[in-house]
């Protein structure tokens, strides 16, 4: 039965996440925006609390690791509302609080999602409790992630990694980094594998931290690997170079993480919409859902259009997560969600600054910050343009060779 309401069973989870956002993230939002690179120590307490909730089972598997798809056959064909949906819903709440701080949440890195997505059961258990970040981008390779130059060479029981990774979110604070490297550049994308490299491994060095437009509370690191040896068991998934499977396996992570990033944009944009709605009400502008937009003030009409676009992005994201929960292939829908949420995030937050005038532009409110934070969400985990490529290829039935 078609129903697009928030699942009843996740209401406590959403309530908890919202309390965290209100009481822990928002109060520290401006502080760590100004204190770039300072460690938000308040989050350690929170992380401990979240771990406790996971252990007690109260969190229904939400968070970065909630994207794991169980290998077991489902016991029946009933519709599931599972951990993918829970993760998306809790991330929306947390990013309503603060995107940068969510990204700095211990043990909630995108590397954790990667491990959850592609690790075998032994690895999943071994890396449990690690805070893992994700290292894909290189100075010469951004969206073209099949073209990475970092190498992994098998030497005895170890792989030896060499290369430089940039834009590693939480790369300084994390316990381990999931690194993409190629086993043999000649073999193309199928030879790209991901490796879990624990912090402190000799040959791995954090070289510098970026100064950024937004999400300044989150550290963004450059990491160099020089003859860095990791046990061969730290290769996630299969070491075989299979032209059919290889890269698709690594890319499958994105089907799970893109809805999470879309959720971040949705949470951030909702914060802007809510505050702007209040500010407009103070200015005497109310939104009437029944009257045509064009018969209302320009501000109200603008707001209606933004809220409509937001709702579309929100439901596209829920759809992608719901499909993952129900074991349906969701590459197309994940990219649709990311594309829509990414552009809506920027559009809504920037426009809200304009509507709020100097209150929006100055640091008195967080509107200007949200419009800086949101921009990255249309870039990382696949830019707007990459999402459009993926959607276009799927709809048109084209290969990456045909539609470049």
């Amino acid at each position, binding site marked *: *039965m*078609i*129903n*697009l*309401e*928030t*699942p*009843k*069973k996740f209401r406590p989870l959403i309530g908890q996440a919202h309390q965290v956002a209100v009481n822990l993230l928002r109060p520290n939002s401006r502080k760590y925006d100004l204190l770039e690179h300072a460690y938000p120590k308040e989050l350690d307490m929170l992380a401990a609390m979240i771990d406790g909730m996971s252990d007690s089972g109260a969190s229904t598997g939400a968070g970065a690791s909630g994207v794991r798809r169980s290998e077991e056959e489902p016991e029946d064909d009933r*519709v599931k*509302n599972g951990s993918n*949906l829970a993760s998306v819903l809790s991330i929306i709440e947390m990013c309503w609080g603060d995107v940068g701080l969510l990204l700095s949440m211990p043990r909630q890195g995108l590397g954790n999602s990667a491990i959850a997505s592609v690790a075998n059961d032994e690895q999943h258990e071994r890396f449990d409790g690690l805070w893992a970040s994700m290292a894909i981008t290189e100075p010469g390779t951004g969206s073209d992630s099949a073209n990475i130059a970092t190498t992994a060479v098998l030497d005895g029981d170890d792989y030896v990694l060499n290369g430089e990774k940039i834009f590693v979110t939480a790369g300084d604070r994390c316990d381990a980094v999931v690194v993409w490297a190629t086993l043999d550049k000649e073999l193309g994308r199928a030879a790209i594998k991901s490796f879990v490299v624990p912090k402190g491994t000799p040959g791995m060095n954090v070289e510098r931290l970026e100064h950024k437009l937004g999400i300044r509370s989150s550290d963004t690191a450059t990491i160099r690997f020089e003859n860095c040896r990791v046990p061969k068991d730290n290769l996630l998934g299969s070491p075989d170079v299979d032209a059919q499977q290889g890269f698709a396996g690594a890319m499958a992570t994105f089907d799970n993480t893109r809805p999470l990033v879309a959720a971040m944009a949705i949470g951030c944009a909702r914060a802007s919409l809510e505050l702007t709605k209040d500010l407009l009400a103070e200015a005497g502008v109310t939104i009437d*859902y*029944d*009257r*045509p*937009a*064009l*018969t209302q003030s320009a501000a109200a009409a603008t707001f*209606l*259009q933004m*809220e*409509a*676009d937001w*709702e*579309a*992005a929100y*439901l*596209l994201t*829920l*759809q992608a997560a*719901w499909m993952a929960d129900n074991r349906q292939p969701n590459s197309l*829908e994940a990219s*649709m969600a990311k*594309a*829509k949420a990414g552009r809506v995030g920027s559009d809504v937050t920037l426009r809200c600054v304009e509507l709020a005038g100097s209150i929006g532009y100055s640091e008195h409110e967080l509107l200007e910050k949200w419009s800086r934070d949101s921009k990255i969400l249309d870039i990382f985990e696949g830019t707007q*343009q990459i999402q*459009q*490529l993926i*959607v*276009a*290829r799927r*709809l*048109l*039935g*084209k290969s990456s060779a*045909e*539609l*470049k």
Partner: protein
Amino acid sequence: MSSSDSRDPTGFAMALLNKLAQTSALDKLGLRKPAERAVFEATKTGFRTAGHVNRAFARKRRKGGTPARVASAPRKGIFDLTPTEDEQMLVDAVTEFAAKVLRPAAAEANESCRATDDVLRSGVEIGLPILAVPEDLGGISTERSAMAGTLVAEALAKGDMGLAVACLAPGAVSTALSLWGSDEQQATYLPAFTGDDVPAAALAITEPGPLFDPLDLATTAVRDGDGYVLNGVKSLVPRGADAELFIVGAILEDRPALFLVESATKGLTIEAEPSMGLRAAALSRVALKNVRVGSIALLGDTDAEAYTDCVRLSRLAWCALSIGTAQAVLDYVIPYVNEREAFGEPISNRQSVAFMVANIGIELQGMRLVTYKAASRAAQGKSFDREVALARRLCAEYGMKIGNDGVQLLGGHGFVKEHPVERWYRDLRAIGLIEGGVLV
């Protein structure tokens, strides 16, 4: 001419010349009669006629009885995008109807400004007018069917939006009677819709004028004895010339309300209103001049509750129609851009083309999900004003854009009637401005 234009003496001469040239050309070539006939045919009813007279709706005096109402759909509390089995069966049947009956008839219906009797009869046969009518009154509805109605409208419009509107118009009236009709109104009017000879009927809300607001109507109803007197003009009313029963929106004591008006009522006249698109729906203006109706005419309450819900549910139906037509655009342009070659390869190998297709897909799915959310809330008896408003914004904005991009992707071929995309371009423009006509 707009108000800022004025004719100088040269302009007057040119206007005169234009007239003369047309006259002589038409006469010389013997085209005057055919040209006039074309105008006449397109407007079908000539200039202005009285309402269609066919049957008398015999009053059933059951005042004070309980009207039949279906219950809201159950609330399961699980996020789910799967239609029920019943809904899926319905959608499959309607999809086939849309593909095999509506799509092939669409071009001709667009030209002649009417749906053929065959098409309309088939629409009745598959049960469109009784979808929302309670089982107890001869319909098929056992619970609130806003979701099913939405899926059906979407599936129909994939065939053709104009014909979909023509087929759905009587259902708008039977649905309104089911939702808000008194026992007496249901007993008097609904049997006609559940029988074999279903009347044309129409929900008339839109009025001519810029920035039309359905909550702020120019049409008025004034109490007169135990009845009402209605005055005003309704615009874009589907199948107005054939309709035997109208539901008309009018202001009664400062609040909008719904009134049942039989077409034979004195003072009601119909004028064809051929428009940019939706031509198969035979759009009309309905003028009401001192139209006197009895006490049975007031449909629903006088607190604007039924009326406001009616406006919302009608917008919902238009959203569903726009989704179906937008899907038709997407399904049409994909093979076209894959097969059409330029510079030695399919044009879809270029990002500028491929990204337009991607964005059609993305926005269309967004339109669909927000519309479904509104529909499922309506079916479950939850508030849905916000969701309908948002769905309408999306469908108006991106529906128009998808129609525009559909023509653009075909280039010059999209501009000519050899392909249906120009029709979809015209039809999709209606979503942002039209009110009434269809209902789920």
